[in-house]
């Protein structure tokens, strides 16, 4: 072990020209768009906060049960409850004002049922002048026009990106979904249309069943998996996207500890989304994770996040050792 350097490591990072003093980003949908709760996340240590996804029209969301802790994370189908993009603008304005003195940028989040409406929603929330706009094409709990998420194909993901880019000059982040065969291809498609950053990933579709009643646990039957069970899926997606494109990635999914954040940045993330950690660690999750990350870096003498970013991309030397034997050939 080397002696601890007296200076703290530099935890700042950048997304599309926006500087974050901490790499932890409040994930969309966590704590809604309540300005006071967004401020609470910022005070706890979030370097940026993402508002709840809003849609052109208000949505009531699904009935309960809408979120269940199943022991390996959370399964949720909130159903995007939100007051609609117009009302959202005033919430975002209030939030941005409260966040400014803290130096914490606000990320708006939008979703819609059609490509055109995505553009309109972007133009609308842009009025509140958020630092960034996240384009949620990957919510598993709402249906798009063709019955599939826009994040399902490179073509539809690109179309949404183009519509949003044409509607606003605020940098935009496209949020991708894990349940596709080749997430890198989707990433390339949205970057080709001008996406300034990528959030990877949204939840993975899943279902829980209550054995006694034989009913799905969620009122919406299926929902999205987040938390611990999502981490290896997210790490794999981030690793693949980082190898395919060069825009910054908000690595999101199952980051519960400082070590998880190290792993996510090692896989190539510019910064790290945090959501479900709050269920296990409470509202102070950000400060805990930030402290753990700081100690981890300091103990190992790292001065900045750049020094650990993308390490999973390094080539390894598999020819060093003998190859495994062919199995089964000796079986009697």
């Amino acid at each position, binding site marked *: 072990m080397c002696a601890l350097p007296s200076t703290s490591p530099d935890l700042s990072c950048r997304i599309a020209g926006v500087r974050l003093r901490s790499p932890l980003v409040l994930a969309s949908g*966590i*704590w*809604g768009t309540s300005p006071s709760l967004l401020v609470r996340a910022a005070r706890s240590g979030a370097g940026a906060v993402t508002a709840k996804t809003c849609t052109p029209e208000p949505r009531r969301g699904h*009935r*309960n049960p*809408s979120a269940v*802790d*199943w022991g390996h994370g959370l399964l949720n189908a909130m159903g995007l409850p939100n007051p609609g993009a117009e009302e959202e603008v005033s919430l975002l304005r209030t939030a941005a004002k409260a966040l400014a003195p803290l130096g914490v940028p606000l990320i708006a989040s939008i979703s819609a049922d059609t490509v055109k409406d995505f553009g309109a929603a972007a133009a609308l929330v842009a009025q509140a002048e958020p630092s960034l706009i996240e384009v949620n094409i990957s919510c598993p709990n709402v249906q798009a026009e063709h019955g599939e998420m826009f994040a399902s194909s490179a073509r539809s993901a690109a179309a949404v990106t183009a519509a949003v880019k044409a509607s606003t000059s605020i940098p935009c982040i496209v949020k991708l979904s894990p349940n596709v065969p080749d997430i890198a291809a989707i990433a390339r498609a949205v970057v080709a249309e001008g996406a300034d950053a990528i959030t990877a990933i949204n939840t993975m579709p899943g279902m829980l069943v209550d054995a006694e009643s034989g009913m799905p646990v969620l*009122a919406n039957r299926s929902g999205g998996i987040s938390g611990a069970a999502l981490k290896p899926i997210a790490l794999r997606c981030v690793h693949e996207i980082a190898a395919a494109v060069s825009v910054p990635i908000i690595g999101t999914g199952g980051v519960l500890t400082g070590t998880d954040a190290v792993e996510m940045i090692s896989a190539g993330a510019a910064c790290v989304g945090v959501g479900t950690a*709050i269920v296990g660690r409470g509202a102070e999750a950000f400060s805990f994770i930030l402290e753990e990350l700081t100690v981890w870096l300091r103990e190992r003498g790292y001065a900045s996040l750049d020094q650990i970013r993308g390490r999973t991309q390094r080539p390894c030397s598999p020819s060093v050792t003998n190859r495994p034997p062919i199995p089964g050939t000796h079986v009697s």
Partner: protein
Amino acid sequence: MSGAPREAACQHVAARIVEKTQENARTVMLALDAALECIPGQFAMLWLPGVDEKPFSIAGADPLSFAISRVGPFSERVHALEPGDRIWIRGPFGAGFSAAPGRALLVGGGYGAAPLAFLARALLACGGKVDAALGARGVGDLLFVKRFRDLGAAVHVATEDGSAGMRGRVTDVVRPLLRAGGIDRLHACGPEAMLDALASLCTETGTPAELSYEAYMRCGVGICGSCEHNERLVCRDGPVFTIPTGHASGS
């Protein structure tokens, strides 16, 4: 050693109703055959598969009980259940009341009394003294008067229509009690307007207080923001908040 993996603490458990007691015109008490490790003031989610899931205060731990007032479609469905029927629960959620010796005044508005008899037993068990102030619109909404009397508590009653006890609001019986002094702590649960009035009274008289709030709940685990009340999450920071600090109390 079949090595069966443990289940998560917060998944649903299918409980069976073992007893159903009519408490007042619109409230039944359900005793279940399940167990939750919990303290007074915490709540659970009650689920009827295919119908809905709603939050209810834990009204007793042994047996696990809930006092359910019929106010709408879900509570109506619950009222239709009989002993032997199933109801699904998960919990406990939230921060409960703290139990300390001294003289406590428990204030319940309508079905807000639900967690307070449970709390009274905990207070008495740790050497405290209990007064209860119960308010409701009318006698048909008054909850737990007999339960508190049976526990030996002094019970002060107010109804808006004067059908039982003093005519007026529960704050009208609480005010003189607080001003008279001798109350070390106030614990309350009920409608927001009642809680806000009690908060002013407690601030005025310097009485430490724990107030249990309601809010519309979705996730129940502090992540969705649906239950925000004054910058705090009722499901997780609360439902019990202390005044004047506004911080969560209990464990």
